[in-house]
């Protein structure tokens, strides 16, 4: 009887799945392709483009219906002979939270999109 009870108590609960980075990568890549694909760097439109990339990515990520808070960052640089570095460091729960980075470029510009997903525990 006692050993049966112990077996029942020791039954493991399911572990959290974690962030699906590949899915997010595909979503964001499609968004960027849709907005910037075929365009050349244009100072007048750049504001609008970054806003739509970020907004569309966020909307599609939310449609996945997962319990996450999202932070989406987008940096667009004109292609030039000048250097640019980005780095990020995160303090979070490594099992449940995750990040994904998409680098995209064409002839006239480079684009880096970062997605950070932080789990909400329901």
């Amino acid at each position, binding site marked *: 009887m006692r050993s049966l009870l112990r077996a029942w108590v020791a039954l493991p609960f399911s572990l959290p799945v974690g962030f699906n980075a590949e899915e997010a990568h595909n979503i964001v890549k499609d968004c960027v392709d849709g907005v910037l694909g075929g365009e050349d760097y244009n100072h007048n439109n750049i504001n609008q483009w970054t806003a739509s990339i970020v907004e569309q990515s966020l909307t599609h990520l939310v449609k996945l219906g997962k319990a996450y808070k999202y932070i989406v960052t987008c940096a667009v640089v004109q292609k030039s002979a000048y250097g640019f570095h980005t780095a990020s460091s995160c303090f979070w729960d490594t099992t449940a939270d995750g990040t994904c980075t998409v680098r995209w470029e064409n002839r006239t510009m480079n684009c880096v999109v970062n997605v950070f997903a932080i789990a909400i*525990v329901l």
Partner: protein
Amino acid sequence: MMMSDIAKNPVAHSRKKRGSVSSLSSHEFQRREIHGRTKDSMSTVSYMDEPSQRDDVSRLTVQMENTYQLGPPKHFPVVTVNHILKDVLTNYLQEEEYEPELCRQMTKTITEVIKAQVKDLVIPRYKFIVIVHIGQLNTQSILIASRCLWDPKSDAFSSYVFRNASLFALANVYAVYLE
């Protein structure tokens, strides 16, 4: 910066696994027109601090009790963090000139330093994300935007831009409350 809010039902944790993930991927866009060759480089350093041994036992998810708190007892101090960012960037970059190797290392170091200083503030139940961009200052154009889906009552961000003669640096810290 634009944020959209979503109301969340707060749930509590009495014990949580904290890990420090430093994904120091430094994306460097640099075209050197020497001999007509272009070169893009990317370096990635990814490491995770291992949780302590006794946490292995708690890897099985356990049901937590409610704290019945509706919001964070101590909010993220945006102004203090602004000062931290300003101090760190100014100290590290005041006299520096833009050099590819130096800045590559510098971005990673600065992210780590900022993260350590923000952690020292000891604000319970907050998770942090630190992002640093460093670029050469010249006539090229760059736009950096971000949008967050979170609860604006408990979550916040802090940002600072530093410029000197040859480079610019942007540091962002996002703080997300653990619900």
